[in-house]
């Protein structure tokens, strides 16, 4: 058992346990903070797979952006001073059965399929290759993504705007 394997199992344990807390916790703030550890663990998985730039991007976008957005959403939509915060679940038992069957099927497919693999290589850094590929082969996608992000942010600001002046 090498160091790589030990690190993988530790990170995978962290991801699965914190994701289970996200899914099962009654307290929504605790679920959000547990999601932080899921994102950190997934970033570690990316780095274990030799994708250093994607790992750092995951840290910056998910931990620094999306998680903060989620926390803002929680704090803006929960009535802090009221005791009754509705967070109960619906149809727990049938959902567990169906999702369990689905997960077993998925894991069966993943294990039984004879994947064609090559020897993995660990590049020193992926940034140069990533930038070259992104701007040479995928430049149209790059531009479209920029426009999509711009439109989505303008749309979000328009939707969330408090239009008291029009009334």
């Amino acid at each position: 058992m090498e160091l790589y394997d030990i690190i993988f199992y530790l990170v995978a344990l962290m991801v699965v346990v914190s994701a289970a807390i996200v899914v099962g916790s009654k307290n929504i703030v605790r679920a959000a903070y547990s999601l932080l550890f899921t994102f950190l663990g997934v970033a570690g998985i990316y780095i274990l797979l030799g994708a250093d730039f994607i790992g750092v991007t995951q840290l910056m976008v998910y931990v620094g952006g999306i998680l903060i957005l989620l926390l803002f959403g929680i704090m803006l939509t929960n009535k802090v001073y009221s005791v009754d915060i509705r967070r109960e679940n619906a149809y727990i038992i049938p959902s567990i059965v169906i999702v369990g069957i689905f997960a077993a099927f998925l894991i069966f497919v993943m294990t039984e399929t004879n994947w064609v693999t090559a020897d993995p290589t660990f590049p020193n850094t992926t940034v140069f290759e990533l930038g070259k590929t992104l701007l040479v082969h995928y430049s149209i996608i790059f531009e479209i993504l920029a426009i999509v992000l711009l439109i989505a942010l303008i749309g979000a600001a328009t939707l969330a705007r408090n239009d008291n002046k029009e009334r």
Partner: protein
Amino acid sequence: MAHVGLTHFLILSAILFSLGIYAIVVRKNAIMVMMGIELVLNSANINFIAFSHFGNYGISGQIVSLVVIILAAAEAAVALAIVLNLFKTYSHINVDEVNKLKE
């Protein structure tokens, strides 16, 4: 406890995907549903990068996962704006009771 290979990463992503689907199905709070969606997107990203790493396909898989991360950011922003509007209208964000976007 075999040597870590492609299958280990795929099983991890399958578990994460199932947990995300469970959160989407079971949770009533819209923000909890969004957390489930983020879990599903992360598991898809793990699959892309794992195949790109073990399949020797170059770097294209990582670019797909970058695209997914950017779209997840855009989706989170728009979804939170919608959730805030729902809260303004209904004073709660239980997705099983919401059936109109505005009065």
